[in-house]
């Protein structure tokens, strides 16, 4: 039997526009899946009633306009949504209801979509396994007790389990691409400045970027197109025309030069990752792309630099959660005590760890040695990319050094957890676009993805290359619904 919820975004939109089925039918199908999937714990807030109402209203419309006409979309709970609780996965915002709508979600609604719910994520997007969420672990639909990755873990699981046609996430160091890789889905982090950060709960301002999470590359192009755009309310957003990514999407990649960076062949990398990478190279070679060996010499400094810059910014960004204005407040006998109690009680351990690291690296006497040094390293990493992009059009790497791991496996070993982002972090430091596309499975039958890194604002090229890989790999998400 054909289930509407198996359809891609592109198919759903055209089906609704052709009146093959209604928005209400689509919405109900995803709600029904969601109702049966509580075990995965992907939702922090369900908006099923409102979504059904929106779908009904949509169906009554005379003409079905917009790139996302009639599509219900669940979004990561980092996007502020008007009159809908927005928690960032944290106790400190467990009761926070914004009076405003983030620019990115607003862009989706302007294209005819509506909100299905708010998805679980690591607290303030700090984590690679969704284990830091105040609202509990998210389960990877591939297997029980398996993490979906993070921080956009709820988004990735919801997508893989067909609980939302597409979703959006945010990516500060790999938070879209790593969970996409862990769940056999497509996750794209756009160029820094492509999507507005206005209304997204900030983690690290110079790294955060929202992006599409979809079941296939075609949907990624469509959703990216819908969510992107210049926003005068975000000074770091860039006023560059949004491409018609979908109509320009092609798997003809002949002549494109693909860089293979030697520094991404890390020690102790599972051989299956290496094999997967070679497979990707072959796919592109077969499609007529030119493979070039390149060097990004400062890659090994990316992770340490990231874990200075990101916590530094976070320590300052999270200072506003003080119990004075909104969100959680604990009692105290004076202002200082109220602060201490509120923040001790409101933040989880990983967030506290990063606030401490960030505060430390910005402190007088340490600033030059840590923060300033990290910024210099960041510039060198960016220079590395600038240089190789004179010779190549895109770079192919693995998305992650391993497949999804078990809940609890790395929880007490932050460094091993951080190492998960080793291939994704340099991209954020350089502000580049990158996409993770599913290619194969490891020996445990867990999905693995490859990452394509593009030039600034050249999302089109990595989308095209991903499409070529997608076609050759013919990846199928092998999920039997075990959790019902």
């Amino acid at each position, binding site marked *: 039997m054909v289930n509407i919820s198996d359809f891609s975004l592109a198919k759903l939109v055209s089906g609704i526009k052709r009146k093959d089925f209604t928005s209400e039918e689509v919405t109900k199908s995803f709600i029904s899946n969601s109702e049966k999937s509580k075990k995965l714990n992907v939702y922090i807030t369900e908006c099923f009633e409102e979504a059904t109402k929106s779908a009904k209203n949509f169906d009554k419309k005379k003409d079905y306009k917009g790139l996302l006409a009639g599509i219900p979309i669940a979004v990561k709970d980092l996007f*502020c949504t008007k009159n809908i609780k*927005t928690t*960032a996965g944290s106790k400190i*915002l467990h009761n*926070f209801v*914004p*009076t*405003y709508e*983030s620019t990115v979600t607003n862009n989706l609604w302007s294209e005819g979509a509506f909100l299905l719910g708010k998805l679980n994520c690591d607290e303030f997007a700090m984590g690679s396994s969704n284990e830091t969420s105040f609202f509990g672990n998210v389960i990877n639909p591939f297997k029980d007790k398996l993490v979906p990755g993070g921080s956009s873990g709820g988004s990735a699981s919801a997508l893989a389990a067909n609980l939302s046609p597409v979703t959006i996430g945010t990516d500060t160091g790999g938070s879209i691409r790593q969970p996409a890789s862990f769940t056999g889905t497509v996750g794209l982090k756009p160029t820094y400045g492509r999507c507005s*950060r*206005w*209304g*997204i*709960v*900030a983690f*690290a*301002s*110079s790294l955060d970027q929202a992006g599409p999470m979809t079941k296939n590359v075609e949907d990624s192009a469509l959703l990216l197109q819908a969510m992107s755009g210049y926003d*005068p*309310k*975000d*000074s*770091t957003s860039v006023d560059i025309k949004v491409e018609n990514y979908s109509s320009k999407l092609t798997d003809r990649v002949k002549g494109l030069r693909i860089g293979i960076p030697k520094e991404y062949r890390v020690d102790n990398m599972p051989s299956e990752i290496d094999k997967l990478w070679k497979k990707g190279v072959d796919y592109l070679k077969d499609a007529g792309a030119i493979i070039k060996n390149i060097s990004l010499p400062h890659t090994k400094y990316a992770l340490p630099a990231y874990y200075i810059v990101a916590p*530094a*910014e976070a*320590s*300052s960004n*999270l*200072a*506003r959660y*003080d119990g*004075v*204005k*909104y969100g959680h407040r604990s009692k105290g006998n004076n*202002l200082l005590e109220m*602060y201490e109690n509120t923040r001790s009680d409101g933040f989880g351990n990983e967030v506290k760890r990063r606030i401490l690291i960030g*505060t430390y690296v*910005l*402190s*007088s006497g340490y*600033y030059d040695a840590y*923060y300033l040094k990290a910024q210099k390293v960041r510039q060198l990493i960016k220079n590395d990319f600038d240089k190789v992009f004179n010779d190549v059009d895109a770079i192919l790497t693995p998305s992650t050094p391993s497949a999804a791991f078990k809940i609890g496996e790395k929880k007490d070993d932050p460094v091993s957890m951080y190492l998960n982002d080793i291939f994704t972090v340099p991209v954020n430091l350089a502000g580049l676009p990158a996409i993770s596309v599913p290619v194969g499975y490891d020996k445990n039958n867990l999905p693995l993805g490859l990452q394509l890194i593009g030039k600034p604002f050249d999302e089109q090229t990595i989308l095209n290359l991903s499409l070529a890989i997608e076609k050759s790999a013919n990846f199928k998400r092998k999920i039997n619904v075990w959790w019902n």
Partner: protein
Amino acid sequence: MTEKKFDYYIQGEKDKWEVIIGLEVHAQVLSKSKLFSSSPTKFGAEPNTQVSLVDSAFPGMLPVINQFCIEQSVKTGLGLKAKINLNSVFDRKNYFYADLPQGYQISQYKNPVVGEGEIILDMPYGTKKIGIERLHLEQDAGKSIHDMDPDNTFVDLNRSGVALMEIVSKPDLRSPDEVNTYIKKLRSIMRYLETCDGNMQEGSLRADVNVSVRKVGEKRFGTRCEIKNINSIKFMQMAIECEAKRQVELLENNKQIDQETRLYDTKKNTTRSMRSKEDAHDYRYFPDPDLLPLNLKQSLVDKLKKELPELPDEKKERFIKEHNLSAYEANILVAEKEISDYYEEAIKECDKKLATNWIIGDLFAVLNKKNLSISQSPVSAKNLSALIKMITAGKISGKIAKDVFEKMQDDNKDPQQIVDKENLIQQSDPKELEKIISEVLSKNQDKVTQYKSGKTKLFGYFIGEVMKVSKGKANPQLVNEILKIKLK
């Protein structure tokens, strides 16, 4: 004016000490909206009615630079003859306080928008150049109100995010008088530029004072203390003096000065320690990642420079040259833009010398007495000019003019109307005057005889009598001439 010599020193038990002062002035930028949000900045609004989601630091809110505030700071920099930094950076100054919603203040730390400049002070002992170290832009915090409720502190965020210019002087000031002149001159420049209204009562202009002392002749600076948030020039001057004396006493007793922040107690006229250097906040400054570095175009700076109004120093030079004023007079007339505007309006049609005397003399006396600013003057420049014209045209005497001026203060009355209504026009008809004079002389035959026999002092008496009869309206010059002839 005789040139005085600088003589502000603290005389200790053992030595004579020089006082070194540097000022950090916080001047609120005159702008309709805040530095990074579109909220209005009007003073005195109901609490928390001028607050946006950005000002109250809601999740996901981002600052956007208000271009107008940037231009205001550049204009101020140009007015201080300072270097404009085309590339500057907004940094975050991190600290927790209830009225600081973001948990950090957006400020400029290493790369301010304006670099070194100067202010010229006119002191009784000559002009003195005071260096400006820098000017940077920053956000104001909100206001904590502790006395509205016994158990709670209330916070008003209307001020949160309002643009401030922090103007840091070099340690070039040497006395409370120089501090007074410096602040007034700085205020005047900003008011000329319309970049800050300089209203100290409303907190648009606040200052922190750095004070240290050193023995006369010593080249090195001593350890300084910062005195925070003094809201009047008078208190600032008192605070400096008592702080300098405290430091001298410590040093002369071989004690050390701790570099610290101190508070001035206006009631006891003492300063006390607020926090020591060890307790000083670590503000963890770093570039605000929500804002791109501020890059100004030279063309914008050039444009603003071209549009700059005439500033007090230039105006003073011009007044001396064009209107033949003394430096003293010019200084007074350019001290405030409104005074110079008044003066220039007045002299459009009347005698400059007389206008200067009337403004500096009679008008200022009235303003002082009634505690009014020149813009609230009860006599408009136009009417004062009309009055002076009547004097020079011989229509009224100087003495009558004083009376008319008195009456003009009632609702800015037109002097012509007063003169007409009260029939105060000067009698300059020689025939009429001759009649009065003859009358006076015939009534005082005895005195005429005395006069003619050599008691020439009586001439004044005759004039007085004529004036009395004419109710002060007789043209004194004509009376003089006619009398001389009649008494020959």
